[in-house]
């Protein structure tokens, strides 16, 4: 693989790497005929980010590879801490770098990143990589109940009111308004915390679709990373989501690139529950830590501590009409690739055997994305899948939303 970036594109590439570094510690490089995909996922697999640069983004783009690979382009991953320092100072890149060349050199087992700078200076970095199957989260955003589209500036202006240390925020949507408020775990510190909430009227958005009233809670840091990129490029950001517990997808695109961030949302027993559903069953608590869920940031929320939220939890069936399945059954379904079922499992549903009361967890978003063998048995890992791993050849799902 060999590609050349010129001028401002080098800075855009660097900004994408900054956004990816907010997500995970490793950077997946996947050169394909449709473009170069850069991806990252976090260690608990609850956040995923992908930047796809089309061949038009590059001054030159070729997938030529050595004979050892049999014509396939090399897919690999790099340590983020090896790559990020190269693009750390974007202002200096903007000032000094005229051209950047990224190539994979198989005889040397190196990814070579070369910067051709002003004053006749050339910087060459030979980075070690690890061959890896590509990483991909498949998320059917067009099937999401709710969708928003807004200029990045609007979202940044909303998000800027929250302190930098704020870990998670809650986005609530009803037909009347969208609001953002800070999410805090633990009700004991009411006196010490500052609560911020702001609401926007649907008219502020370029696109506003409410399928189900919902409150979703997701990581702010990861979201900020993408917003920063979107703002620099003045791109509108689309947000697709459903009820709490299902992933939220943020995406943006222009003619030469597409970016997607998929974040898991908290299974929140505090949510009001979608207004359209009539079924309720006896209140049950989300599952405890021992069952098939990997918590993120070990946050445990005790529900019913916030006074304004209902004491009862509501088990809701999937808004897409998927069967409600229990955890053990769901595990069997995981190896399938066509499973929208795997995608849309509502976490409240598999709560039968809850042990600890009132613990909310973020479900793992990706499953087996990091494993290269497909033929393994059903569940080497007991994690519910919210978005399935696909090995890149399947074009069943469009990742980008079409609005």
């Amino acid at each position, binding site marked *: 693989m060999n590609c050349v970036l010129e001028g401002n594109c080098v800075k855009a590439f660097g900004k994408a790497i900054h956004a990816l570094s907010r997500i995970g510690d490793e950077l997946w490089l996947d050169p394909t005929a449709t473009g170069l995909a850069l991806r990252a996922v976090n260690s608990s697999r609850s956040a995923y980010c992908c930047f796809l640069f089309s061949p038009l983004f590059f001054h030159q783009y070729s997938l030529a590879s050595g004979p050892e690979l049999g014509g396939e382009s090399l897919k690999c991953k790099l*340590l983020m*801490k*090896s790559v990020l*320092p190269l693009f750390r100072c974007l202002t*200096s890149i903007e000032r*000094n770098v005229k051209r950047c060349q990224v190539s994979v050199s198989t005889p040397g087992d*190196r990814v070579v990143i070369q910067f051709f700078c002003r*004053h*006749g*200076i*050339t*910087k*060459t*970095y*030979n*980075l*070690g990589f690890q061959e890896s199957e590509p990483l991909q989260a498949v998320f059917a955003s067009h099937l999401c109940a709710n969708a928003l589209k807004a200029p990045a500036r609007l979202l940044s202006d909303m998000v800027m009111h929250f302190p930098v240390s704020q870990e998670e925020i809650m986005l609530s949507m009803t037909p009347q308004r969208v609001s953002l408020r800070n999410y805090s775990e633990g009700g004991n510190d009411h006196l010490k915390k500052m609560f911020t909430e702001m609401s926007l009227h649907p008219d502020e958005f370029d696109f506003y679709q409410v399928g189900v009233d919902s409150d979703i809670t997701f990581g702010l840091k990861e979201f900020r990373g993408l917003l920063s990129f979107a703002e620099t490029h003045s791109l509108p950001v689309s947000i697709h989501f459903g009820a709490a517990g299902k992933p939220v997808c943020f995406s943006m695109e222009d003619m030469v690139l597409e970016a997607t961030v998929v974040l898991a949302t908290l299974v929140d027993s505090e949510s009001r529950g979608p207004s359209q559903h009539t079924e309720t069953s006896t209140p049950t608590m989300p599952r405890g830590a021992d069952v098939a869920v990997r918590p993120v940031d070990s946050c445990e929320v005790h529900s019913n501590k916030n006074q304004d939220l209902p004491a009862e939890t509501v088990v809701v069936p999937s808004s897409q009409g998927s069967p409600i399945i229990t955890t053990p059954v769901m595990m069997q379904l995981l190896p399938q690739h066509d499973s929208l079922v795997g995608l849309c499992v509502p976490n409240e549903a598999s709560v039968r055997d809850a042990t600890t009361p009132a613990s909310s967890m973020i479900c793992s978003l990706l499953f087996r994305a990091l494993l290269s063998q497909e033929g393994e048995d059903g569940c080497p890992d007991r994690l519910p899948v919210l978005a399935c791993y696909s090995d890149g050849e399947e074009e069943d799902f469009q990742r980008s939303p079409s609005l």
Partner: protein
Amino acid sequence: MPLSTQSQGDDEQYVLVACSDNARNLSNILKAISFKDHAIFTATPNGLRVTVEDSKCLQANAFIQADIFQEFTIREDSVTFQINLTVLLDCLNIFGGSALPGISTVLRMCYKGYGYPLTLFLEEGGVVTVCKINTQEPEEPVDFEFCSTNVTNKVILQSEGLKEAFSELDLTSEVLQITMSPSQPYFRLSTFGNSGNAHYDYSKDSDMMELFQCTKTQTNRYKMSLLKPSTKALALSCKVSVRTDNRGFLSLQYLVRNDDGQICFVEYYCCPDEDVEEE
């Protein structure tokens, strides 16, 4: 000013007296070589030379000519002593390190000779401080025997070009490799760190390159820990000359302009890292 009204008779007892109306002219340049606690001061009628060494493999010298000082009196051909450089810098900055325009610390530095402390009179805004710093038996500085006749390769670069490279150096690399050649890559700095290799190439036609005289291709490695302190001198300088001799010894010479536009020099000598095979 109190210092200048000191009776001239006192000076009889001193073998060295140096006065400056801006102590920063001295302290800034000494900071550029302050990677070790102790420094050897050698004063001659030409001026002051301050030497700092590290494990006999690295030597840094700062040269402050006599005409940098408002007054420079020396009663012997050569006056040498060793002193704690950290303490000296603390004293020179005793009125605070910040550089406010129009306010400077006046310095009068006096030395009575062997066995006596170095006395500093510092004055700012009417406040006078007197510091007496003990001196020690001077060690003989290493003579690196670096002479211009043995120089094989020499380049002079504008410091601007090197500053970014040095600030970005991969510190997980144990060595800094310097390649100088009459052909590609001309002048190359390389590191071999945990993430991989990095090379900074400066073309001989670069507008940062003021002089390019390379006679043969040479690649030498130097311990990163030895060269990292030179970044301070690089930061102060406007030009740097890089020379290697036939043994692979490295000489870095930095041209430093002080606040008043006067020129001083800082020089680093470093011996090559012999243990490692060249790539």
